[in-house]
């Protein structure tokens, strides 16, 4: 009974490590399979368009609303202490350090990650990956690498855009609607936000999220069972795993960056 339980746990553990190792090797191969510039660059640009540019709308709209909500909530609390001029500081630090990278990454996982998984999974099920291999082209170089790099490049940019729009949204609500004095809104923000500590740490976070989300997305697609059900499951797994990874990684990174460890 106990032996059985142990062996079951062991088998699960081995299976987990096996998948982890496979996906690690997979990442390694696509990372070090940077295609030559002449052929690779157009592929990369195309992917940056579909992964990054097409995600802009959802990122911008969400950023705007999150910034507006933050300003509204923050104002209500700050005004109780008569310190509503600190609104700029509150909103910008929240967005740059946490909400920008995290929410942008979650949206990115839902919008671009799931699309990547589904696209690659369908390529697998329609034998396009197999036919690439038979033509003598490594799908890791041709299909996976440009998508991976596009995700890694786009994620920090999207997060910065998210935060910027969020701050603008906050100023719309805070300054233009609720009447916080615009001089103190912006001056407070300028005083308290450090470029390296806040802005760059946020960018580093989103870079890490970009790597993890795209890695999970392309691997799930490549590893999916090539049936309609399998692709559906792989897409779900991408969103679930990526979201969990983002949130837990965020805790670790926050502890390292701002936890004075």
């Amino acid at each position, binding site marked *: 009974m106990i032996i059985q339980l142990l062996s079951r746990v062991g088998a699960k553990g081995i299976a987990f490590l096996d998948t982890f190792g496979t996906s690690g090797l997979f990442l390694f191969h696509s990372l070090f399979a940077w295609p030559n510039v002449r052929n690779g660059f157009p592929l990369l640009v195309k992917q940056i368009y579909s992964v990054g540019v097409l995600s802009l709308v959802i990122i911008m709209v969400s950023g705007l609303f999150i910034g507006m909500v933050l300003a509204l909530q923050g104002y209500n609390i700050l005004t109780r202490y008569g310190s509503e001029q600190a609104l700029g500081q509150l909103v910008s630090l929240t967005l740059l350090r946490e909400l920008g990278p995290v929410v942008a990454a979650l949206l990115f996982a839902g919008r671009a990650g799931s699309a990547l998984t589904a696209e690659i999974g369908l390529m697998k099920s*329609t*034998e*396009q990956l*197999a*036919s*690439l*291999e*038979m*033509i*003598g*082209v*490594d799908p890791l170089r041709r299909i996976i690498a440009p998508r991976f790099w596009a995700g890694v490049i786009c994620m920090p940019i999207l997060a910065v855009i998210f935060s910027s729009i969020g701050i603008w949204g906050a100023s719309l609500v805070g300054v233009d609607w609720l009447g916080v004095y615009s001089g103190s809104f912006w001056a407070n923000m300028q005083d308290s936000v450090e470029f390296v500590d806040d802005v760059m740490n946020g960018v580093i976070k989103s870079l890490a999220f970009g790597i993890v989300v795209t890695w999970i997305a392309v691997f799930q697609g490549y590893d999916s069972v090539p049936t309609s059900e399998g692709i559906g499951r792989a897409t779900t797994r991408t969103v679930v795993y990526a979201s969990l990874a983002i949130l837990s990684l965020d805790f670790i990174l926050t502890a390292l960056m701002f936890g004075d460890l």
Partner: protein
Amino acid sequence: MSDSNNNFIEVRDLTFYRGERVIYQNVSLDIPRGKITAIMGPSGTGKTTLLRLIGGQLKPDSGTITVDGQNIPELPRKELFELRSRMGMLFQSGALFTDISVFENVAFPLRVHSQLPEEMIRDVVLMKLHAVGLRGARDLMPSELSGGMARRVALARAIALDPDLVMYDEPFTGQDPVAMGVVVQLIRLLNDALGHTCIIVSHDVEETASIADFIYVIADGEVIGQGTPDEVLHSDSPRLKQFIQGLPDGPVPFHFPARDLSDDLLAGVK
């Protein structure tokens, strides 16, 4: 038979399992150079699997597969991809790249493996598409093609580089009688003109027998018959006879392995 110069592909003692199911058990066969060899057999016997094993997409559990003197399962990735650039394969589903046009699909292998100028690529692609009767469809996207048309485009793509080995997986399925005749002729013509080695996987007995030089019939994980089309068509082996004549009853099972029908029905719902 074992003269390696005359055989482009030699398969020796091939064993392959898919999960628990035995697909091949100690199979050996030779594909002669410059000839059309047909692999026939009932569906589900792993004919496509054999092509994938030859292409190195699957690894056998044991045995060797030698293509032009190189043992595929042990070939390093780089050499394997080089060797594959000399192979063309027509997939059962066509497997066209859905994000690029018919023209670009056929041009793809040329762009990857040759340094030809754009002008020449255009000429080659149009010639290949003309051969399969789809020159006028060059600007369509794969999603706009019927199944048979897609397969003909895939055929044009498979032969775009004039490879040394062309593997056709079910080239006749889904073709109307006219296109069927053209495809059969085309395969024969290409082989006569270019002298490349062909493998045709099919279960269309008549069409395949009309163009093949040599036929292997595979069933139950082993070779049950081999020879020239004439020998195979007039063989006395009961298993071969049943397959060739399409008889429902005989030693080749029509049913997937299962217990007795009456037992199964009487067992009821658990």
